[in-house]
C-alpha cells in the first residue's frame, strides 16, 4: 500500500497526535483484511502535529465511534484516487459496546451480558448509564466488543 495516495478507501485525518493507536484498537482495525496505514506525528498547520489513518478499499466505518473518540477528526472518502466526500464528526448522543466501563464497582463488572452504554452529558463528556462513571480515554479495560 502506498501511504501517500489511495485509489479507494478512507483517510481518517486530523487525529490528535498520539491517539491513532486508540482508534486502531477501539475500531478493531487489526481485524480488517485490507491494508491499514498509521501515520504518527504528521505535520499539521492547525495543531502542529497530528495522526492519520489510511484504510484501503473499505469505506464502511462507524462514524459515531470516531466522533466519540475525537469529534475534531475528519474523514475523507476516496474514490478513483480523489476525495469524493469529506465528513466532519460530531459527538454521538450515546455509544453502545464501544468501550467498557472501567469502574470495578459497576454492575457491568459482574453481569457480563449487559451492554456497555455511555451517554453524552453536559455536551462534552460520556458517562456510563448505570454507575455514571465518566469515560476517560486510554483507561478503558478492554477494546470494542460486538
Amino acid at each position, binding site marked *: 500500500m502506498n501511504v501517500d495516495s489511495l485509489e479507494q478507501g478512507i483517510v481518517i485525518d486530523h487525529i490528535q497526535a498520539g491517539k491513532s493507536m486508540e482508534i486502531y484498537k477501539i475500531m478493531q482495525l487489526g481485524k480488517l483484511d485490507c491494508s491499514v496505514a498509521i501515520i504518527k506525528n504528521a505535520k499539521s498547520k492547525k495543531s502542529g502535529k497530528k495522526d492519520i489513518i489510511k484504510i484501503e478499499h473499505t469505506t464502511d466505518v462507524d462514524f459515531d465511534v470516531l466522533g466519540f473518540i475525537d469529534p475534531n477528526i475528519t474523514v475523507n472518502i476516496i474514490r478513483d484516487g480523489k476525495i469524493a466526500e469529506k465528513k466532519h464528526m460530531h459527538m454521538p448522543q450515546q455509544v453502545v459496546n464501544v468501550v467498557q466501563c472501567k469502574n470495578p464497582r459497576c*454492575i457491568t463488572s459482574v453481569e457480563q*451480558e449487559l451492554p456497555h452504554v455511555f451517554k453524552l452529558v453536559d455536551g462534552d463528556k460520556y458517562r*456510563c*448509564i448505570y*454507575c455514571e*462513571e465518566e469515560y476517560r480515554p486510554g483507561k478503558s479495560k478492554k477494546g470494542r466488543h460486538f
Partner: protein
Amino acid sequence: MKHLIDPMDLSVEEIDGILDLAKKIIASPKDYAHKCQGKKLATLFYEPSTRTRLSFEAAMWELGGSVLGFSSADASSAAKGESVADTVRTVSCYADIIAMRHPKEGAAKVASLYSKIPVINAGDGGHQHPTQTLTDLLTIRSLKGRLGTMTLGLCGDLKFGRTVHSLIRALMRYENVEFYLISPQELKVPEYIREAMRQKNIVFHEVERLETVIGELDILYMTRVQRERFFNEEDYIRLRDSYILDMEKMALAKKDMIVMHPLPRVNEISVEVDKDPRAKYFDQVLYGKYVRMALMMTMLEV
C-alpha cells in the same frame, strides 16, 4: 410508569408533593391505612440493611399492603448466578412495586430497564440512595419548617458519603442555603460537587474543625470518619476528636440547631448527645418510614 433511581430524577415540585403527602400521613395515619390494600411490595435486598428494608416493609404494612422478597443474595437465585434483569422480570409477575438494594453501582438502573413495575433504588453500592435524601428533606422541612434559608453543616467523610452528595445536590435547588463542609483534607467533597456549587453561586465554606463553626449552623449533618481513610496517622490523631460530637461541642451550638445522621452511628456522636433535645437522628428514622409511604403511594398512583 416512573422509577426512582437518582434523587435528581424528581423535580422540586415532585419532591414537594411527596413531602406534602408525608405530612398529611403523619397528621392522620389512619386515613392511609388501606391505601395500598391488595398491593404488594417486593424488597430485593442483595446485601444486609436494617433501617432501609424494615422501613420499606413497615411503610407498606401501614398502608394496608403486603410484602415479599429476600434480605440477602444468598437467599435468592442470585446465588445461582441469576442476573438482576431476569430477577426483576420474574418479580414483576408477583408484585406491584420493587425496592432494591444491591452492592454494585447501577444495579437499580438495570432493574428499571427490565422491570414492568416501578423500581425504587434502595441503595446501589456507593452510588445513589434517593430515599435517604427524601428522608433528610422531610426531616429538615418538618423540624425547621422550610427547605431554604438555612445554614447547613456537613461533617465527616464528605468524599465517599453518597448521602452527603445527594443532600447537597437536592438542597442546592432551594434559595439561600449556605453550606459548611467540615472534613479533613483527604475527605473533602469531590470537585464536581464544588464546581456545581460555584456555578449556582452557592455560598460554601470548607473547614477542618467542627468546633470553630458549629455556632453558625441551623443543621448539623454528621457522618462517620473512618481511620483508614486518612493518609497519615499524624493527621488522624490531630483531627479525630474534631469529628466526634459531644456535649462540649453541643454547648457551642445554637439552641435550635438540629443534629442529623443517616445512621448507623458508631462513635462519631457520643451517646450523651442522644438526650439533648436537638439530637434528631432517631426522629429522622421515623420520617424515613413516612416518606417511603408517601413515595410508594405516589409511584403506585393510589
